[in-house]
């Protein structure tokens, strides 16, 4: 019976990646490989101010002194950093004014993904800053937002138009020395998003960026910076899909969030990059450094992520709770299927008094997938009366997959309370039979059960994103049943 249900689940979970296609957009490449010249090339291409070139070169020189980290629960083939193209941009003819001017291939790609910019604009009131191969092609709603004094643009644009803000905050949360991949990103980052919410402003729409890796063999190095001034609020969404590729594509992004006194930032991610085929060939390497700082009192930063893609995922969206009474939250669903590996979690650094953090992590492993939760909760001596609640659940589909939980807890004062709960469960034959007896086939039953399991996290997502995420969860575990 055991082996039988394993077989069924095995067959079931071997679905092929649905979003595997490549659009042919004219691309301009940097020379292959990485030297100071590459960095000067990128910086010159982007007409960057001197301070940024300096920042990049410092990061690069530091990176040269570092070695790629080794992790206990990830198996990574050596990456040849000299065999990567560090810059690729769609050839820009002139500034785009409306969607008609956008490359039709690009629009078709968005349509295949069900992301029509026009529809997004009309139906959901979402401002979309679409990033394809590192350079922003189209920014919408910028004008509406600017009425509120909100800046939402590509990182490159911010560098040119708001250099002082960039200079002040870039690298202030994730320094260029932070880790191997953060240093690399700081040296070669191509583009990304910049978002600034002025004092007291509630951003009236969900800000959204669809990232997409598109050119073969091009490392993707996004950089996002969000600054929320005192008493402001913003909800930011990031979603990704990628075309099918044979070679591993490296992705090393940085996201920095700064929340001042009484500000709130909600950052939601749905990540669906190509995970590699059934045998583990191809797929994206996703090494991301995401960190936010609650700088003032009563600030709040909330990370929500649904991770279904990538061959290897390595990311720990984290919060530094510096302001008194500040709040950090981390809600995560991570799926690993076939040969996917995920090592994800969060770090909550409690520095201010009465700071609170919540961690809800839901791992789902299928096939030969390996899923690790790694979390650090650190409550320093000064962070009196602080609290953390962590719940880490693992769901296993089949018996060849793995789930691991590594909670690290450091409490340096006596008045704080840390609670940690962990569970591991399987989809039982009882549950499947119950669903099937009601006329629901195995595939839908697993989708239903998995979405139920992940509900606590999914309900944190903005409405339209939640629907997409539910579909993704089912798709990522879908396959040919009997």
């Amino acid at each position, binding site marked *: 019976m055991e082996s039988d249900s394993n077989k069924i689940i095995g067959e079931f979970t071997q679905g092929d990646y649905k979003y595997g296609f490549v659009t042919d957009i004219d691309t301009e490449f940097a020379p292959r490989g990485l030297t100071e010249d590459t960095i000067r090339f990128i910086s010159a291409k982007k007409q960057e101010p001197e301070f940024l070139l300096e920042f990049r070169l410092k990061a690069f020189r530091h990176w040269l002194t570092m070695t790629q980290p080794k992790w206990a629960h990830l198996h990574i083939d050596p990456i040849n950093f000299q065999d990567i193209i560090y810059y690729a941009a769609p050839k820009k003819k002139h500034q785009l004014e409306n969607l008609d001017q956008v490359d039709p291939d690009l629009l078709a790609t968005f349509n295949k993904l069900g992301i029509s910019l026009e529809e997004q604009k009309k139906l959901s009131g979402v401002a979309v800053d679409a990033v394809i191969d590192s350079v922003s092609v189209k920014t919408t709603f910028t004008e509406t937002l600017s009425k509120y004094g909100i800046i939402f643009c590509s990182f490159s644009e911010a560098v040119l138009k708001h250099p002082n803000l960039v200079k002040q905050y870039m690298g202030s949360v994730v320094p260029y020395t932070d880790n191997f991949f953060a240093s690399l990103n700081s040296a070669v980052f191509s583009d990304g998003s910049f978002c600034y919410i002025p004092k007291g402003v509630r951003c009236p729409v969900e800000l959204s960026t669809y990232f997409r890796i598109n050119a073969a063999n091009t490392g993707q190095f996004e950089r996002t910076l969000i600054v929320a001034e005192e008493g402001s609020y913003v909800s930011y969404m990031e979603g990704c899909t990628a075309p099918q590729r044979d070679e591993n594509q490296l992705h090393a992004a940085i996201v920095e969030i700064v929340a001042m006194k009484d500000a709130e930032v909600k950052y939601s991610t749905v990540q669906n990059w190509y995970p590699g085929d059934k045998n583990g060939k191809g797929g994206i390497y996703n090494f991301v450094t995401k960190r936010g700082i609650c700088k003032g009192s009563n600030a709040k930063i909330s990370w929500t992520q649904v991770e279904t893609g990538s061959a290897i995922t390595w990311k720990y969206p984290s919060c530094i709770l510096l302001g008194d009474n500040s709040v950090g939250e981390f809600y995560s669903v991570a799926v690993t299927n076939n040969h996917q590996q995920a090592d994800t979690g969060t770090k909550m650094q409690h520095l201010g008094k009465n700071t609170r953090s919540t961690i809800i992590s839901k791992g789902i492993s299928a096939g030969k997938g390996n899923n690790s939760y790694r979390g650090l909760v650190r409550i320093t001596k000064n962070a009196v009366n602080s609290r953390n609640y962590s719940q880490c659940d693992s769901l296993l589909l089949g018996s060849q997959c793995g789930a691991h939980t590594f909670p690290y807890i450091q409490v340096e004062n006596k008045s704080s309370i840390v609670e940690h709960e962990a569970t591991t469960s399987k989809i039982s034959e009882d549950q499947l039979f119950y*669903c099937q007896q009601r006329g629901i086939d195995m595939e839908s039953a697993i989708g239903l059960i998995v979405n139920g399991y992940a509900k606590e996290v999914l309900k944190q997502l903005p409405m339209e994103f939640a629907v997409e995420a539910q579909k993704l969860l089912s798709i990522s575990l879908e396959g040919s049943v009997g």
Partner: protein
Amino acid sequence: MLLSIKNLHASVQGKEILNGVNLEVNRGEVHAIMGPNGTGKSTLASVIAGREVFEMTSGEILYKGKNLQKLSVEERAREGIFLGFQYPVEIPGVSITNFMRTAVNEIRKYKGLDALSASEFIKMMEEKKKLVEITSNLTNRSVNEGFSGGEKKKNEIFQMAMLEPMLAILDETDSGLDIDALRIVANGVNKLRRPDNAFVVITHYQRLLDYIIPDYVHVLFEGKIVKSGGKELALELEERGYDWIKKEQVE
């Protein structure tokens, strides 16, 4: 004839549980199956529903004249077979509303009907809730999660009302119910009775049969139906227990 079981043998993990069950159920009838613990009542229900852990070793089951063995669990369900579980299963995070909407629409798809819209579905659900006297907050909760024993059983009846089966097998749906709940469950069944459908009610208590009047009562003993009769057989069992049947078997 709706259901015809001939000389059914079934085993689980190599152990034979059913050894030669014969049973015929016509449309419009209610059959009660009684018998001591562990004699194979739930096994019989599971085999009819097509649960894979139970292996049918010989015999045949015809439903609407078709050989059931060729159909998967969900196909049988879509063809109108409903099993009210003795131990309903919890599905955390999945609301009954969502669960039932998925089920109803899958069955409709199988029958070539369009999916119900959200508002049509809600309307249907309200009607059925009224029919089985279920309180509204139960349907917002996750399937069976944290339900009391009685709530789980009422929820099974609610699901039966939603799916409008042709053949409903209720496995000890009366166990663990208080008197009011018992009446609610029995009324639900009676309201759903039609000339073209049939019920097989597995129970230990004659009490239920005061509310749901069976056409036939069968005694399942050691994997076989050893005695069949009318409603009065249930009364006799209530009075005399199973010892006399065991003795009859030995003789």
